[in-house]
């Protein structure tokens, strides 16, 4: 309860972020009910925006506005699912490496370092090309390639907690490793984890958009990245049909923006000292 009150006291930017995201999520969830038309239905192509087709139609006559709503589903789904996968992996790796130093730590950190220096997009492209077009492949690829970033951050947090006085003080009181992990390490790691999760959703959504744009996503499934691909390929761009390619890009951008704002606010709230610094 106190937490909720704290959140409500935040400033406008954070609120806007949360509101926007919630709006998008609602659109995604309620798409079948609020979409005026079925976006898979063919019809007259390249129509301009009108009262029937709020954003006009694409190259095969599908209603763009409905596409946009349905597209939210896949874009957000892939984003969240991939982020969940990667953050979970990263958290486990980071916790294990940070808590049990030694050979395991060195090995894991070595792997993490190698991954961190590799270019993600080309690698994702390479793997996706082999795996074939599907949204689950995309989710898997993004999820399995992005974990090092979280792992590194979590590990350094765990290390700083481990070396801190209060872990030692708990040990002096007779606490076991498990107790310390449960009561001291995890609660201090969770806020960081949440902030990282939100940021990873943003990264995952951007990657999905890029990969779909390149043609590595499911051609039938609706996602914002896919809409942009068709808009670009099938004459939307060349024909100047900005109502086709502007909305999906804008939608992606707004989602990313709101996620970024939310992540800032999580980081602020969790560390009271940081808050004072940020307010300067």
């Amino acid at each position, binding site marked *: 309860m106190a937490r909720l009150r704290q959140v409500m006291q935040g400033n406008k930017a954070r609120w806007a972020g949360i509101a926007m995201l919630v709006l998008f999520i609602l659109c995604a969830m309620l798409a079948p009910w609020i979409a005026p038309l079925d976006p898979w239905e063919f019809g007259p192509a390249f129509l301009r925006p009108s009262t029937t087709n709020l954003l006009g139609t694409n190259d095969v006559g599908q209603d763009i506005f409905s596409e946009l709503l349905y597209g939210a589903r896949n874009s957000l789904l892939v984003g969240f699912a991939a982020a969940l996968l990667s953050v979970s992996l990263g958290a486990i790796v980071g916790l294990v490496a940070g808590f049990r130093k030694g050979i395991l730590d060195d090995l894991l950190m070595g792997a993490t*370092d*190698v991954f961190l*220096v*590799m*270019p*993600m*997009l*080309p*690698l994702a*492209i*390479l*793997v996706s*090309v*082999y*795996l*074939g077009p599907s949204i689950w492949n995309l989710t898997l690829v993004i999820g399995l390639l992005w974990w090092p970033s979280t792992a590194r951050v979590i590990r350094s947090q765990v290390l700083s907690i481990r070396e801190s006085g209060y872990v030692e003080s708990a040990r002096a009181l007779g606490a076991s490793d498990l107790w310390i992990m449960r009561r001291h390490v995890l609660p201090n790691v969770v806020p960081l984890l949440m902030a990282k999760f939100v940021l990873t959703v*943003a990264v995952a959504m*951007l990657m999905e*958009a*890029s990969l779909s*744009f*390149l*043609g*590595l996503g499911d051609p039938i499934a609706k996602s914002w990245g896919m809409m*942009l691909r068709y808009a*670009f390929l099938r004459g939307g*761009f060349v024909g*100047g049909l*900005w109502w086709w*390619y*502007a909305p*999906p*890009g*804008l939608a*992606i*951008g*707004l989602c*990313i*923006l709101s996620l*970024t704002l939310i992540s800032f606010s999580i980081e602020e709230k969790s560390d009271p000292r940081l808050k004072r610094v940020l307010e*300067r």
Partner: protein
Amino acid sequence: MERHQHPAAAVASKAVRYLIVLFVIISLNFLLPRLMPGDPVMNVLGEEAYYGSPEVLEELKAEWGLDGPLYVQYFRYLGNYLKGDWGHSFLCMRPVSEAIGLHLRWTLALVLPAIILGALLAAIAGALAAWYRKSKLDIGFSATFLSFYSMPHYWLAMVLLFVFGFLLGWFPLGKVTSGDTTGLAYVVDVGWHMVLPLGLLTVSKAAYDFLVVRNSVISIYGEDYVLMAQAKGLSQMAVLFKHAVRNALAPLVTVTAIQFGAILSGTLMIEIVFSWPGMGTMIYEAIGARDYPVLQGAFFIIAVCMLVANFIADMVYVWLDPRTR
């Protein structure tokens, strides 16, 4: 306490680490086609291979040892790669290394100036924003850069090209040159074509750096000698400015190294929209034609670029470090 690592040792250990990464990448390039679903021969040579002449196909099979045992293949592969033979692209009808060589220069022509200009832009904007903290300028800059940071690069490219190329006609609609020009006229022509993509990349890069610069300037702003400098007048401000720049330089280098991958990826996507003949368009076509050798080669060379960038950043950092002490 004596420092227990000589800077040369630090550089050397970093170099070793990067070499290991390269080695892992080549190994990945080797393993992926053989582990992934599908015909392994096709996975290695690319789908177009089957449409080529059978003699060339046999030749390639022999060259890469595709009918031999795995470990023999591996060492052949490693050897070939290190020699610079990265396979044959059936799509481009030329060796992969040649194809990449042709395209890489155009990508670098965008990326390298963008990094420098972007850092410059971020430095100025960040310093100003920090100076006039919480003012409309600060909020305006922050909001703009944050928005640029959030939007997909290629989408921004589309919008930009539409507005400035299509609607306003100020800039050409893509590619590098508009026709046959030579000498100075050629350079100017290329430059004119470059404005939009370079501008976009510069602002994108600046968006990453802006926050870093702003925070580092703010962190020294609160100190007492700032107030003193303000009281003493303009000459002190100049000294202050130099100090602020020096302070912001180290984190800027770090951010650049970390974000290099993102900038590069953004460039690849932008190139597709602008029909810029760089790695981006090459990869795009390779995806369509399932030209795997090209994709692997591109992965490799991009990784090399990233490692070089990281390495340079590390060295610059080491060079900066004892000075600031």
